[in-house]
């Protein structure tokens, strides 16, 4: 398992990265931490002819708080965000989900935006972004645009990013008063890909539950503030509507069962955290 051939470009400025990406088209790929991309290269699932390294751009390595959102630049590693002293206070859902992303030995290199670009169906960061209605900031040589998480993830490992665009940052809404957050995951081993992951956001009168690991990309549903049997019924309908797949790790039915049980636990926990 060795990668095929590619040119390697170490971008010195963001403009250089945009230029190389525009020139390379769909044969070019951005590399940041490489924790998702390098295995794809080694297995030759991805065969770019140019890799553009953006990890030497200081302007992308920033975590900023802007208005009511945390802006995480494309160069910020998962471990760096997890170690950020304000994280749990600014966004408890992100603080709860990040320890589930890979292992400490991969979070040390992997980036937050890289996980979003890769868009694995069971990945925790895309799930959290969707649950919180975050925004992906894309830029290219010609254009800049902001895409809501809901529109960004378009299918199995596919996103709304165009070939000449890179993810410059993501914006994750900060915690709001009177809103509760919870994250739960089931996997065979901590750090493995989730069989089912749940992220819940409970506000007054409404609950949003996002599910990862079941469908081609994370999926969210908004419920009224229901409890007991009404919640069970609503989760049952949600689980039945999901296009779940069988694989080596679990059957589709098993996954739907987890959505019902783990979903309920997650929603109840978020509701308790609302006060």
């Amino acid at each position, binding site marked *: 398992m060795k990668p*095929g*051939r590619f*040119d390697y470009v170490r971008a010195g400025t963001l403009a250089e990265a945009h230029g190389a990406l525009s020139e390379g088209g769909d044969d070019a790929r951005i590399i940041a931490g*490489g924790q998702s991309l390098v295995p794809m290269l080694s297995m030759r699932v991805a065969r770019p002819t140019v890799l553009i390294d953006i990890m030497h751009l200081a302007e992308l390595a920033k975590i900023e708080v802007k208005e009511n959102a945390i802006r995480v630049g494309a160069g910020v590693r998962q471990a760096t965000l997890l170690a950020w002293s304000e994280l749990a206070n600014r966004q408890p859902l992100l603080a709860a989900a990040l320890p589930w992303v*890979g292992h400490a*030995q*991969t979070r040390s*290199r992997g980036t937050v935006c890289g996980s979003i670009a890769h868009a694995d169906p069971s990945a925790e960061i895309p799930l959290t972004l969707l649950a919180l209605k975050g925004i992906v900031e894309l830029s290219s040589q010609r254009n800049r645009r902001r895409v809501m998480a809901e529109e960004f993830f378009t299918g199995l490992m596919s996103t709304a990013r165009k070939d000449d665009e890179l993810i410059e940052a993501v914006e994750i809404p900060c915690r709001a008063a009177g809103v509760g957050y919870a994250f739960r995951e089931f996997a065979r081993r901590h750090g493995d890909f989730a069989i089912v992951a749940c992220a819940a956001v409970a506000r007054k009168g409404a609950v949003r539950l996002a599910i990862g690991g079941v469908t081609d990309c994370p999926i969210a549903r908004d419920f009224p503030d229901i409890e007991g049997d009404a919640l069970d019924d609503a989760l049952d309908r949600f689980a039945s509507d999901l296009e779940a797949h069988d694989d080596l790790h679990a059957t589709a039915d098993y996954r739907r069962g987890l959505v019902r049980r783990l979903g309920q636990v997650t929603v109840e926990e978020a509701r308790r955290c609302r006060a």
Partner: protein
Amino acid sequence: MPRLTADARHRVRFELNGRSVEADAEPRMLLTDFLRHDLGMTGTHVGCEHGVCGACTIQIDGVPARACLTLAVQADGAKIRTVEGLAPTSGRLSVLQESFRRHHALQCGFCTAGILMSLDYYLQRHPGPTEAELREYLGGHLCRCTGYAPILAAALDAAGKLRETAADA
């Protein structure tokens, strides 16, 4: 903006176990292969080659990372530490290595280098780890011989010994 072309070998320089090293690599070369084949440092093992097993774990700029998920050219200018850098002097083992020996925390030894590099970092950062914390941390490594119990025992014992040494100092 440096562009390293696919079909040529390019000079890569970094600090390895406190010493400057350099050799040539194609852009597609993994750091595991660069360390083993070009620098002759075969202590770092290659297992699954997609980041799951942890055998190739080394320290890059002071933190544990998978060498198989890193390109040699990405490591240019970095500070790298491998299992060869653990022993204080030739013929002597580090506290952690000695503890692994005492507890029989390895059988075939294939996973050991990676686990040592992870634990070396972890015990420095967390001098008083609980067994549960160590279990979670070791989740980033696969061992098919030991069943992990002796590895945990060795890690806890080493943590105690390192605390004593730190208190004496």
